[in-house]
């Protein structure tokens, strides 16, 4: 017995070690980026265009481009994703079609991001003749975050108790009225969480926008959805690998801005989820 207790101690020590091997580097990475990126942050860095071949100046066009792309992606993906979730949660029967839809969602979630880029290039840029534009990039990102939004919304809809639906239906409301007035309002926080996580994902992805929208360098802001745009993640890639002799401060500063945007969205999502758990009445 003493022997097996000693084995347990050793085993648990290694389990802890493995956990620390993952969590400690995460903390270190974030600390390093904050520590080295902080000195670069200034109003000028956030509001100026890149200058001197991106070795000086700011990152304003990249921030604006990312905001446009992410907004476009969500405008496209949220209605479709939400409706798909409503279908799966409220209408779908347990049959072959439903199984096929679920399998498609799993597959969409697993398609490599660079393959989304190829797909966006072939369909939106070349076939639909949108060219490399905010429209093409937004649609590509929108399809990429679709599975995330469907899964989160479906979970939110599914967590509304069935008794809510039964009461509404027994009062003579139709199926759609029940969904619209009873199920959806109760699922809003969960849907919001999924949407915000989708936003964060879209803001950080690089590969899908490489050939569909991203511009190496643009001194002016985009005027319409058919213009190319700079984007933060692509800008970070460019200044860290394609342009030599960029001041390290600018690289870290760009990484910090991107990280803050993405983590802020995740934080908001976590807070909503936390408050939801506290407030839940059923």
């Amino acid at each position, binding site marked *: 017995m003493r022997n097996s207790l000693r084995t347990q101690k050793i085993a648990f020590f290694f389990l802890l070690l493995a956990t620390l091997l993952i969590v400690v580097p995460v903390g270190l990475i974030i600390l390093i980026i904050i520590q080295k990126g902080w000195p670069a942050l200034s109003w000028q860095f956030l509001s100026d265009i890149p200058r001197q071949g991106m070795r000086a100046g700011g990152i304003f066009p990249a921030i604006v481009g990312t905001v446009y792309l992410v907004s476009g992606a969500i405008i496209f993906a949220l209605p479709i994703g939400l409706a798909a979730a*409503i279908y799966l949660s409220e209408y779908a029967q347990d049959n072959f079609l439903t199984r096929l839809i679920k399998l498609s969602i799993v597959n969409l979630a697993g398609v490599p991001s*660079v393959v989304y880029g190829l797909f966006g290039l072939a369909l939106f840029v070349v076939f639909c003749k949108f060219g490399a534009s905010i429209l093409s990039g937004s649609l590509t990102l929108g399809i990429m975050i679709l599975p995330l939004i469907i899964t989160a919304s479906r979970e939110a809809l599914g967590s509304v108790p069935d008794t809510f639906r039964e009461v509404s239906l027994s009062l003579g409301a139709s199926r759609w009225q029940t969904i619209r007035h009873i199920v959806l309002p109760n699922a809003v926080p969960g849907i919001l969480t999924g949407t915000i996580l989708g936003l964060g994902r879209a803001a950080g992805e690089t590969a899908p926008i490489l050939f569909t929208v991203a511009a190496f360098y643009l001194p002016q802001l985009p005027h319409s959805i058919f213009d190319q745009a700079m984007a933060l993640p692509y800008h970070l*890639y460019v200044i*860290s690998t394609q342009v030599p002799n960029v001041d390290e401060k600018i690289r870290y500063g760009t*990484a910090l801005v991107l990280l803050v945007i993405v983590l802020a969205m995740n934080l908001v999502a976590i807070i909503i989820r936390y408050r939801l758990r506290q407030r839940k009445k059923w």
Partner: protein
Amino acid sequence: MRKLKEFIIEKLILLCGLASILFVALIFLFLLKEGLALFKTILPKDFLFGHKWYPISEPALFGILPLILGSFLVTAGAAVISVPIGVACAVYIAEVAPAKLKEILKAGIELLAAIPSVVLGFIGMVTLVPWVKTLFHLPTGLTALSGSIMLAFMAMPTIVSIAEDALYSVPKTYKEGALALGATHWQAIWRVMLPAAGSGILAAVMLGIGRVIGETMAVMMITGNSAVMPASILEPVRTLTATVAAEMGEAVVGSEHYFALFAVGIVLFVISFFINVTADLSLHRKK
């Protein structure tokens, strides 16, 4: 009137429900449409097993074997590192950690999942790459090994969260039975919980590997991008994903090179399709 409105709404909802099937089909069709054009001029055998990837020389050679091996090498390295550590971490979080610590650890893992891959690639370039270079006395730190380490790290959130779910879904009575028979907590985990969660853990590992094969930006930034047959894990390699990402910008639409990159896309799509379907099956068999 109301009935008609509801009828339309319900049909629209059904249509959106079918959208995911449509998109998967569209992705595959457009990859095929552009990718298969390559095989008018090049034999599939020469494409898959050719040793030379010289897309812009005259005549151009489109053998993707070095790229497949590059992807394989980096992925295998990442799996060797991430599977034991990831599963151990999942066991620690699910079984050993006290409740408060558990929440912190889970938040940390979620944080890792949220960091964009281009940021991790950048951090890998400035920290991991020089470190690998000095440790192994190499001419460059941009190697398959650096890629493997970084990708192992990036696969962790997937592996940990799915393996953790698998452990939670093992019926409590299994563990209680083992403990009642006098097993220690660790014996119950090792002999009872882990085998019972086997198919879920297998799915976790597969989805983690799927994530690694598909990862693009970080791997492009730190593996050195040399499209030659890899000889060792301490040399630069180039993966399938990095090839597409790095070269599509320069390929002329409609050229052989353009078609070849789409053909690489087909290979990637098929690999990820198989991984996801198998993982999904093994997750569902559990129930």
